[in-house]
Every structure is written in C-alpha cells, then in structure tokens.
C-alpha cells in the first residue's frame, strides 16, 4: 500500500493507494495544485480572487469556475439555502472546492487503473475498492468531545465521509440566513458515496443546527448523518447503522 501526504490547499491530502508507486500519483497531485491555483481565496492572483475583485468576468475565468459556482447554487437549493458561495458576504466557494478536489483526484486514480484507494483531504474522505482483498475500508470519525479518540467507525467499499464542525477553527461556519454560527453541535458528519456533494452538504447541514440537519438528512436517500452535540451526545439518522462497523468499538 502506497501512503503519501501532500500539503496543498492550506491543508494536507493523504493518499492510500494499493499496488501503486509515488510516480503513479503525479497526475492527481498536479490536479490538486492546479485547482488550488484557480480557487484559492488566499492567492491574490487566483481566478477566484480576481473574479471577486472584479478584475475578471466569469467568462474570462477557467471554465471550472462557472462549473463550481453552478454546483454551489445547486447545493444551496438542495439545502434550503443553507449553503452559499457567499455565506460570509465575499465570494468563497471553498465549501465546495475541497471535497470536489478530493473526488477529482480519486477519479483520476480510478481512470489510471488504481481502483483500490483512499484519498483524504483536510478530514474529508473518498475511498473505493478494498485496502486488502476481502476487507472494506474502515474510516474513523474523530470525536470532537474527546481529542484523539473516535466517535464511530464506518466501513464500506465506496464511501464518501465528510465532517464539518467547530473543533479546529471555532465557529466559522455561518448560517447564510442569519449570518451567525449555528449552535448545539460540535460536529456533523455525512456519509454518502461521492465526496463533492457530501462535503458541501455537510457544511450546509452543520449550518442548519443539529435537529434540522438530522431531519433533512433522514429524508435524503443519498446521505446519512452523525451529529455530536455540545455535550458529546452522538445522534445519527437511522440509516447510518448500515455503515457502522460491527461491535461497540468496531473491533468485534
């Protein structure tokens, strides 16, 4: 199993790829750095920064910019307006870009024939195939109430797992309706199949607050939710059960 950690997009992307060498990752790594160059809000010369300043029209940007903004609009519609590329006022589609970048890197690996791999970017996971023959991937969900511990282990052969929360950066996710951070939960994890949408929806669902989010997720066929409340209590949509590793500690 090749393991590689790549600093990019202000965070670190981790790769676990079966039957691969580092050279096999080159196209996926190049794509991540290219996307960072287009979408970084920290780089003054990125397309997204120049678009935000009015130096570029949308039509002058890389075509991916329009595609990403369309996706942001679609996620906003699917989540009762709890997702926006302008949640804090300024143009910032980062809530879509990171998970989407992980999914694109995963797809490049699959297209190159590496069908058993796990790509994790800034705590959001896309995995496919099996790490070893006959065994599904096992993804730990960090417990924000207990540093260094896990709240749950989910398992599967084609999984997207995205977590939003206040653990690292404090209350930075805003409810676009109020401009204020949501209250009640430390973190919210969505489990689905494709990370781009799963990750953006996790950001939106966290902004909803825990109870609206659980109701919302329960009626979405493509995602299941795990919420960890401020007091550490764990709640989940009933369908999450099919992803949970057996045994109380996931090791029976």
């Amino acid at each position, binding site marked *: 199993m090749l393991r590689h950690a790549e600093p990019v997009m202000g965070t670190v992307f981790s790769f676990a790829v079966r039957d691969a060498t580092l050279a096999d990752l080159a196209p996926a790594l190049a794509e991540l750095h290219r996307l960072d160059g287009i979408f970084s809000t920290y780089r003054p010369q990125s397309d997204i920064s120049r678009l935000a300043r009015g130096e570029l029209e949308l039509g002058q940007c890389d075509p991916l910019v329009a595609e990403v903004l369309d996706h942001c609009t679609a996620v906003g519609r699917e989540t009762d307006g709890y997702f926006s590329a302008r949640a804090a006022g300024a143009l910032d589609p980062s809530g879509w870009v990171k998970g989407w970048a992980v999914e694109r890197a995963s797809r490049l690996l699959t297209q190159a024939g590496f069908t058993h791999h796990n790509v994790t970017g800034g705590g959001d996971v896309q995995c496919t195939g099996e790490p070893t023959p006959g065994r599904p991937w096992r993804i730990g969900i960090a417990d*924000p109430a207990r540093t260094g511990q896990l709240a749950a282990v989910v398992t599967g052969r084609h999984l997207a797992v995205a977590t939003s929360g206040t653990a690292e950066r404090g209350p930075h996710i805003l409810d676009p309706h109020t401009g204020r951070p949501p209250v009640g939960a430390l973190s919210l994890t969505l489990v689905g199949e494709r990370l781009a949408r799963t990750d953006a929806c996790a950001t939106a669902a966290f902004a909803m607050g825990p109870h609206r989010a659980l109701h919302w997720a329960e009626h979405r066929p493509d995602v299941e939710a795990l919420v960890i409340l401020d007091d550490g209590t764990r709640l989940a949509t009933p369908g999450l059960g099919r992803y949970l590793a057996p045994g109380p500690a996931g090791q029976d």
Partner: protein
Amino acid sequence: MRRAVLTGTVTVAGVVLLLSLKPHGSASAQSAPVIASDSERTAASGPSAAPSPSAGSTTAPAKAGTRTVTGNAVDTRYGPVQVRITLSGSRITKAEVLQYPSESRHDLEINQYALPQLNQEAISAQSAQIDSVSGATYTSQGYQRSLQSALDQAAH
C-alpha cells in the same frame, strides 16, 4: 411504526406532564405531530395546576366531575405552546399538547436519533484498525495534530 417514548419532563403552565410522544412515520416527516397522553397523573395542587386562568381556558361539561380544559396558546422563548387537560375532580387523567414549538422536539429527536448500534463510549483509534480519519481538520496546522497525521506517519 417506530414508537419513541419521551421520558423528559415538560413544564407547561405549571403542570409537569409526562408525555408519550408518537413520532412521525419514516415517510412523512412533516406531518403534524400526534401527541397522546399519559393518564393517571395527579395534579400537584388541585385545580390551580390547570393552565393559567388568565389563559382563557374553556371548560367542557362532562360526566361525573370530568372536564377538559384547553389553555390558550402561550408564547415561550421557543414558540407557542398549547395544552388541553382532562380532569376527574382535581386529578389530571389526560393531557394533550395541541401545539408545541419546533425546539421542544429536542428530546423527542434525541430518542428518535439515538441509534442502538452507536456506542456513546470513546473508541481508541489504535484499537479500531482504521485506514483514515474524518474530522474537522481544515488546515495544515490542524493536520499536524490530527489522527490522520499519525496514521500517515505510522505508515512510513
């Protein structure tokens, strides 16, 4: 049909009611909540335990000292709450919540979303044999402190 029982207590207009709540079916989240009553609760202090008289209660005539009292909707910090109680003498035999604010669904939802398979204990990352970690790690500094970082280093 799943059925959850709310064991928390809800204070409405001075009456502490133990409610049995029937959550929505899995296919109809937005349907009106159906709230049945727990019977045989004894009012703490006789008729004064009924919804506040200032709430404009109405009394329905009934047999053998039984009466129902509907309180006006009372605004709380979470939204309007309205109850109807049935009394036999000074004893509350039935309590129904006609309206409750969405936030008072909190306890109901804790029951509804408490998965039996979801352990509330901590899981040691070392013993769980995981391949990667999902967590709210957004920055490279956060990565340095994360379980994912430990996993990546262990593999080298």
